[in-house]
């Protein structure tokens, strides 16, 4: 059913919240994928994952975001790694309205995480 419901507050009768919290606070895109294959395990507003090297990915959005000033939340898992070596991930390329590039490292070795989770908020 098409249509628009314009309200400023949502309430269940006990608790209420501004509709702005829902609009501004919800993820505009998210994806969770397997690092070694870029197999997508779940997504919203993500058209594809491009794996260009071990630990190097680009998340492409299905519908472009209204601007590139969005926040990115990254989560990674790694089943096996030497505890002496730290793991980290970071935003590699400039954020654009259509995609963002990401990297994953163990120590100084760019490699695949077991799973990679990305959420886009703005």
């Amino acid at each position, binding site marked *: 059913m098409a249509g628009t419901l314009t309200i400023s507050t949502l309430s269940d009768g006990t608790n209420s919240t501004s509709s702005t919290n829902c609009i501004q606070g919800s993820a505009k895109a998210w994806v969770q994928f397997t690092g070694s294959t870029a197999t997508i395990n779940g997504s919203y507003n993500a058209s*594809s994952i491009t794996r260009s090297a071990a630990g190097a990915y680009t998340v492409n959005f299905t519908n472009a975001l209204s601007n590139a000033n969005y926040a990115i939340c990254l989560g990674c898992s790694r089943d096996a790694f*030497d505890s*002496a070596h730290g793991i980290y991930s970071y935003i590699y390329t400039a954020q654009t309205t259509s995609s963002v590039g990401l990297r994953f490292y163990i120590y100084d070795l760019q490699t695949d995480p077991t799973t990679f989770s990305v959420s886009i908020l703005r």
Partner: protein
Amino acid sequence: MTQAIIFTNDNGGVSVCIPTGEIPIDQVKIKDTPSHSIIVQMSELPNQHNDFFDAWELVDGKVTVSLDKAKEITKRRLRAEREPLLAAQDVAFQRALETGADTKAIVTEKARLRDVTKLADAETTLEGLRAIKV
């Protein structure tokens, strides 16, 4: 059959674009990949050599694995694996010096760790490279 979009990237390697299924793969190809990309079946990719993904090369529409690049990947792995072991040997060497203990075994082990990457040069198969351990 699951499909992917592949293309040679700026580094000479192969980029693999996996659609999420939110839009048809033809649209993903146009929107998310360069014009020289091609759509392939996932089963056509050498996924059994995924640990050497950075050695993949796209030649005449087929993905192959470069042995020379695989050797370099193996060397990087070995360097990372030996780094904490070398550090431990350095500590042991220093302690041996302080106590006047024999350092011969430590020196031998440090030399073995330093030379372990040379093992990759002699290998002629991916399985052989995979089998090299620190």
